[in-house]
């Protein structure tokens, strides 16, 4: 079933390194336009630093809004990489091969996008290192490790570093391939340095393999911890509707839901832009879609628990939050949109093989999921503050300012922008993984049909 097409190594090299060695017009257009959006967002950040956070829509007591929502969203997206590469690698799912690198690098870039959010949302962003770095040069005082805001950067930096290592380790064999095809004053030395003298000896391959497996195993706890810790930013607080025990797994599985959907989106777009029809097939997104059905349903279960156990106390302060979420404009409409786009539309559709195997359908359904999941984060975070506790006197609303929207849109442009830049220098599909996959293809004859089969890896 997999790898119906046999590809030669030369063909793989040629096709996957195409964009590295040529610069298509569409690439320039996309990079420039996305770059402009990012630049506008950077300008908005500058303006915000200059004026103060007054330019946001935040207010008493809605201290967190779009930025934190976006932070949680991007941390969520980052969960795709590990889910795809580490878990599938450990479970030796063959269909992982074309998507591992793109998923991992998306992890790295979305973590970067996520990290910008707590940075710019802080009242005095220029002092933020003071918050995270455990130094005590002049204060004689360390950051307070009791604060979830210390757990956050610790977990996220760990995740960022290990993900980057993960990407890099898997890149080395491909870097050597590029190095061998590069000339010039900067190109060759750059790849030569980056490829660390890789020449593909069995010893090197063995080390690389071990490193991959080890990193996969080690990164899994980090993966679970990151979004759990993000969830505890809310869970351990006393804000009604935040102080919920189910948040940690609920956030993690929601992250996987949005992250894997983002991988689907990325796969479809990559396939189109980079002409990767030989590598990304219906089977791949079909497998992703099946994974998504399970993940989304697990997510739904936890969402349902959150809902039921909020209502079950029939405490009025929980009720007012849910009342706002469900029945008050515009929150109710947002909630409806969130629920329909992240679950009601895509999951039943994915039950159909035809949908699962259609790139167009999968593109739009996966995009819908992330529209919904962005809103989900917003609806988890903000209503609890808008209706915070029994102090009805302070009940108000929150509307993001144009500055907040610009900055959030900037991060939405930043990640594809970085991905495009990355693709200019490194192949988005690992060459060696594809080549290895080719070696494992076999068939079994059953009666008069030839069934595709695989050499079992372990």
């Amino acid at each position, binding site marked *: 079933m997999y790898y119906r097409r046999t590809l030669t190594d030369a063909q793989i090299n040629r096709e996957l390194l195409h964009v590295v060695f040529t610069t298509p017009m569409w690439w320039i257009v996309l990079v420039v336009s996305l770059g402009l959006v990012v630049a506008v967002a950077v300008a908005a950040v500058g303006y915000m630093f200059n004026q103060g956070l007054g330019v946001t829509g935040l207010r008493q007591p809605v201290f967190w809004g779009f930025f934190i929502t976006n932070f949680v969203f991007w941390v969520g997206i980052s969960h795709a990489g590990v889910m795809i590469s580490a878990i599938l690698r450990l479970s030796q799912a063959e269909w992982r091969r074309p998507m591992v690198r793109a998923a991992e690098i998306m992890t790295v870039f979305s973590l970067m996008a996520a990290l910008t959010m707590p940075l710019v949302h802080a009242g005095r962003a220029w002092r933020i290192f003071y918050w995270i770095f455990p130094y005590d040069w002049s204060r*004689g*005082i360390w950051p307070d490790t009791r604060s979830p805001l210390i757990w956050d950067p610790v977990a996220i930096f760990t995740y960022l570093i290990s993900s980057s290592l993960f990407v890099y380790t898997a890149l080395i064999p491909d870097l050597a391939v590029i190095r061998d095809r590069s000339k010039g004053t900067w190109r060759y030395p750059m790849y030569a340095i980056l490829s660390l003298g890789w020449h593909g000896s069995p010893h090197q391959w063995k080390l690389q393999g071990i490193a991959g497996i080890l990193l996969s195993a080690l990164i899994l706890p980090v993966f679970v911890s990151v979004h759990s810790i993000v969830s505890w930013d809310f869970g351990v607080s006393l804000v009604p509707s935040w102080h919920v025990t189910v948040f940690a797994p609920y956030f993690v599985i929601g992250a996987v839901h949005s992250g894997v959907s983002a991988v689907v989106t990325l796969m479809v777009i990559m396939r189109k832009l980079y002409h990767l029809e030989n590598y990304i097939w219906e089977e791949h997104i079909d497998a992703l879609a099946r994974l998504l059905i399970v993940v989304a349903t697990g997510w739904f279960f936890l969402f349902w628990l959150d809902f039921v156990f909020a209502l079950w106390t029939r405490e009025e302060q929980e009720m007012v939050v849910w009342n706002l979420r469900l029945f008050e404009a515009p929150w109710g409409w947002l909630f409806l949109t969130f629920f329909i786009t992240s679950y009601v539309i895509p999951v039943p559709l994915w039950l159909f093989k035809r949908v699962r195997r259609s790139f167009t359908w999968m593109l739009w359904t996966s995009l819908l999921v992330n529209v919904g999941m962005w809103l989900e984060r917003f609806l988890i975070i903000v209503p609890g503050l808008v209706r915070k506790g*029994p102090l009805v006197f302070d009940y108000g609303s929150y509307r993001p300012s144009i500055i907040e929207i610009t900055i959030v849109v900037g991060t939405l442009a930043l990640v594809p922008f970085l991905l495009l830049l990355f693709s200019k220098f490194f192949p988005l599909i690992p060459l060696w993984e594809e080549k290895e996959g080719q070696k494992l293809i076999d068939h079994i004859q059953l009666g008069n049909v030839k069934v595709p089969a695989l050499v079992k890896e372990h």
Partner: protein
Amino acid sequence: MGLTRRRFLQWAGATGIGAVVFNGCRVPDHEIQVQSPVRLPEDLVTGRDNYYATVAQGPASSEGLLIRVMEGRAKKVEGNPDYPMNQGKHGLRAEALLQAVYHPDRIKTPLRRVAKGGPFRRIGWPEAIGELAKILGDADASRVVLATAPIRGVLADVTQRFADAYGARLVGFDPIDQTVLRAAIKRVFGQDALPDFDIARTGYLLSFGSDFLSTWLDPTHFARGYGEFRQGEGERGYLVQVDSRFSPTAAAADQWVYVTPGSEGLLAMSMIQVIVSEGLGDRSAADALTGGGGASALAAFAPEAVAARIFGGGADGPGRIRQMATEFAGNDHGQSLAIGGGSAGAYANGSFNLTAIYALNHLVGAVNPPNGGGLVFNPASEAARVSAAPLREWKQIVNDMRSGKVDVLMVRDANIDYGLPSSLDVREALGAVNTIVSFSSFLDETTALADLILPGSTPLEEWGTDLPDPGPGYTTVAFQQPAINRFGDTLSFGDALLQTGRELGLGDALPWDTMRDAVRETARTLHETGRGSVTQPTFEEFWRRALERGGWWDMDARAGAASAPPQLPTAPASPELAGDEQNYPFFLVPYEAHGIGAGQFAHLPWVQSAPDPITTVAWATWVDVNPTTARELDLKQDDIVIVGSPTGHVIRAAVYVNPATPPRVVSVPFGGGHEHSTGVAAKRGANVLGILEPTEDTETGALAWAGTRVRLTKTRDRAGLPKLEGKELAVQLKDQEIIQVQHVRR
């Protein structure tokens, strides 16, 4: 740490770049310094402070203050614990005196208009005084009017002397004056001075329209007593607020009784009728009151006859009146006391109302009761006092101005252009006055029309005395002294008058060089009594001690008994509202704003920013509308409505849907809608004084400011009201009430 020169230079360079970068994004240098936890800024208090005792007088309030001064700058206003009226407490307006001193829009030098209608030119004080003396010297003294806000003490004396010696007509102005109250007190008790109310020891307090916890007379003084009344030594007092509006006092009351606007006196009369006819209360007083006529003399006021007019129908009306009368006359709660004022006295029948209300006190022995808790008379005083003139007099002055009979108008905090009803067309009348001179420190509407401005100083910068009226029940003289040097080139009004008087050769009538001398003379007379709170052998010692304590008071100097036989009112019982019910379906019950009053405090940012206690609105004027009424008129919170009166004048303001507003009433606070004045006050809110019908109290001629009917017209506009309350009407969650209440049975 091995700090080599090289590394040091690197660091220095890095810091320099950092400083440039951070400065570029407006991050100040101190941002980069990080605080050690060992010595926190909170631990460090340095510098020496001084406290100066002084006093702030309002039209009917008197707050003794201590001003904290550091390095010549006033930092904080605190209440003077020794001063009998406020005993260490102070209200928010007193706090904001600081902002008057350091106000960014304060007029800091004398100004003279270059040409009529032209711009102002700064001039020096000698020139300013000379100019004023020349104007007055040239003018026919009988065509000169001197208008000031109500004043007491030495300043009143100086002003009076100046006006008398020169021959000008001296007239007091206050948009919301106490003429009716004074007249009623005079009539019911034969007293010239306002009495004190011993709220702390009162058991049953029946208040008609007097918002004494927020704006009426001296709220800080009353609130001090109110705290004791609630949770003092004795039993908890019981407060009934009879009011056509839900004021902060009504909110604090145990019972708020809504009555049809203007029917307060009717209710009081009816209660008297019940008390007399049922033989409750003091029988001799009842006889005296009815002139021996007994209940039959009051038959017209029997509950059955008047209840519908008071409560607007409903079968239980008479019963309620009887119950109120019985409670008032009984002594379940201790000493009863009836007080009234505010809107209750602001109808055509205001005098009737207040007379009837205060007459109630005779029936329950509330006049100087031996155990306290009633009315306490203040000793009469010969000291000069400039009280606000009633509307009747002002109408005449405005007419005189219009017909060219006034050549010079001098104003000192008398903002008549803003404070008199628009239908009098004061602006046009002022146009006919040759020369307008203002002594105000801020550019209010009337000052903006002035030809010459001699900016006065603020209370923290000047000398003076205050004889509180109402006082605490005994002779009290507060001293006002400069806590700081004058900030800006200003001169106190008193000193300006003294100097001008010298120029004009009125020296005999004004025998002092400065206000300080005048104050010292007052002090000297007090010293000579050898009595009171400060007694010292030498005058200088007395002077120093009295200034330190903030004044002198003689607790043994108390007033005698009521000097007039009890009387009942004879004036009309009906409020005679302007406007017909058909076209103007709502009673307009305006009220002094909790902070900015009737506009006198609108220039002070703290006062403007203090939320109204009931609606929590700040900085704006709003219209209180009942929720059902709002629904009927399709009005929502924040909708802008036009409030129009039969005068044809209108205001526009946003609606506050107020659950406590009675259905047929709309309420609008005074004080907003300044055209001129400071940047803080100007172009903000609406001036409801402007749309009032210039109806008078039939007896005293005072403005019947609550006697106008209005209609509401919805507009398409909306304006979010600046209020502290959130977007939702704040009603506590039923399961999670955060305010706990102890329920007691009466």
